[in-house]
């Protein structure tokens, strides 16, 4: 590490000190507390987060605080944030942050003369990002007494491999993690690495899966989670799609919830992000029969742009009754016959 890099890391450490974040959030206070849970029912809030670069850790903490407080005031026990929520902290990077308002990450790196992959930026920022992100959401989850699915963060592991990692912060201060297993082509180009396992986490509000965005395009994700006992699947998204197209948006969480008979909570990052225009709805989904209009939607934002929150009750007991009345009839012999062959040879000539 040369002097320039040492200086940069020193400055990032200063800018990401946990004490600054904790003091800021303590000053704002936790007067609203999560309501007393009702047996078998979980009230969830999904955040539609308008992207803005935060040039200080305190600015990031303030913004997240506002959303969580609003969700808690609406009775939420579970608050879900979108994919790449941690990317708002890229603004703390000296010189690079302001450029990222208009340029893509790759363009910004080229502009400052860096011959680097995008993943290198996440490696560089990893420690500071992790400190700001984890301190903020752990403080908010314990302070308000709620579960917070904090969307995802691009973070390096000890070997320098960068993953897009979903996080769930519990009121007891625990952090549960899940690496994204199905990358966007763009993320692969950036040098990210896909996760190789999916877990269901036992929590006091239910059995929860934490896939990330593109994972919901592949039925296998929800099937694995359902077979592992998931009741609630949280899907943070950040979709580059402008203008918004409702049909394309139907290819993610909505059919997966139907196939797997689970509740789904989708939080969306929207706005101008790193040279992209993101749109999407925050929404809470359920099997068709468990929704008032029979459309699989318990709550959804009115517009696919702009910051907002939607909230709804998820009746876990009703879900289990529905599953008993409509049991899935798998065919393991069929899958044993074909899966090893088709997945090992999935590359189709010219098929992408």
């Amino acid at each position, binding site marked *: 590490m040369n002097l320039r890099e040492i200086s940069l890391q020193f400055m990032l450490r200063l800018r990401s000190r946990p004490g600054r974040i904790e003091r800021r959030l303590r000053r704002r206070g936790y007067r609203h507390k999560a309501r007393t849970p009702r047996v078998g029912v979980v009230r969830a809030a999904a955040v539609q987060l308008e992207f803005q670069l935060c040039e200080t850790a305190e600015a990031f903490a303030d913004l997240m605080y506002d959303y969580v407080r609003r969700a808690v005031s609406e009775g939420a026990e579970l608050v879900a944030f979108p994919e790449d929520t941690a990317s708002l902290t890229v603004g703390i990077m000296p010189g690079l942050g302001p450029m990222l308002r208009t340029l893509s990450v790759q363009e910004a790196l080229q502009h400052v003369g860096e011959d680097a992959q995008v993943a290198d930026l996440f490696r560089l920022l990893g420690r500071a990002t992790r400190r700001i992100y984890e301190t903020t959401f752990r403080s908010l989850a314990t302070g308000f007494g709620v579960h917070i699915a904090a969307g995802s963060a691009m973070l390096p592991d000890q070997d320098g491999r960068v993953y897009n990692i979903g996080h769930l912060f519990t009121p007891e201060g625990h952090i549960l993690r899940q690496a994204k297993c199905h990358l966007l082509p763009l993320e692969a180009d950036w040098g990210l690495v896909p996760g190789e*396992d999916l877990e269901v986490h036992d929590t006091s509000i239910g059995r929860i899966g934490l896939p990330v965005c593109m994972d919901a395009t592949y039925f296998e994700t929800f099937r694995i989670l359902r*077979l592992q006992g998931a009741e609630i699947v949280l899907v943070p998204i950040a979709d580059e799609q402008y203008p918004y197209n409702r049909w394309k948006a139907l*290819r993610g969480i909505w059919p997966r919830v139907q196939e797997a008979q689970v509740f789904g909570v989708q939080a969306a990052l929207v706005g101008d992000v790193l040279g992209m225009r993101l749109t999407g709805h925050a929404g809470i989904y359920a099997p*068709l029969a468990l929704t008032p209009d029979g459309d699989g939607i318990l709550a959804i934002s009115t517009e696919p742009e702009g910051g907002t929150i939607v909230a709804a009750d998820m009746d876990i007991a009703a879900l289990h009754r529905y599953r008993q009345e409509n049991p899935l*009839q798998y*065919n393991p012999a069929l*899958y044993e*016959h074909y899966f090893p062959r088709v997945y090992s040879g999935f590359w189709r000539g*010219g*098929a992408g």
Partner: protein
Amino acid sequence: MSEICKLGLSVSMQGGVPLERDFTVATFRLPPFAASDPASFGRSLVQAAADTAKRADIDLYVFPGLLGMSLCPGFDPAAPDVSELESGLREAYIAAGSYAASALGACVVPGSIYVRVGDDRLQEYAAVFDPQGNLIGEQRQTHANAPALAVSDELTTIAVDAGVKIGLLLGRDAWYPEAARILALSGADILVAPLAPPSPYPAEQAMWGMWQEVQQNQTYGVEAGLYGVLGGTQYAGRAGLFGPCEITMDEAGFLPRPGYFVGTGAHVARLPAEDLRTIRREYPLMRHLNPALYRKHFPMLYRRPR
């Protein structure tokens, strides 16, 4: 009709090259026929296709699920009773399908029927015929509508022309993504579902069947739907032709225009081969499948869910 179905009985489990030429499909939304013998059933199939007869470019006709049960009056598919099944039904269905394919000069899926499995179980079954009337492929249901029905553990792609493979999804198969994934990864570029959904069958229920199977596999899709009363049960099928959103009008995922066909008769669209190749190249979904993940859990987890 050029070069169609020259592969005859070729049934392939290989992945191979993607759709090699444009393919035109007619799918149907129809009530059961009043036909109690193979000849009248076959003529009814041809008659139903009459308004498409002036189009010489149709490669494949797909008729609704359980339409073949018109040959077995009194049988209630909603409460299938093996003792009510006419012996020789499969032979009658095949004779009618063969006749219709020859008369129409195209490949035909003449809906589906129930067949007997062993002494006391029933199974949904469909066949595919080439323009000469030859039986070129068969499929049995792999995910049962009811626990009492038998299922198959075989899914096969069916070559309906050089470079054109289809895969059949019968009844509930269209709502189990495992079946469509197996067919797509085995090389089927057109997923074909002759369906007979009991009423009510709202658009939302339909959408998470064939429409989304097509989206997550980047194939084309065909849904044919039975409507009306059969054996005392009311059916509410729809007809639809589907493609990946990006290559369809308004990016809605339907062909030739957004929405299901809920009239009576034929619904026709051309499925362009180049468009399918383009979307697979530009948005390579299959490249990001995660076999290492699936190997950890499949298929064991189906046997031992937690």
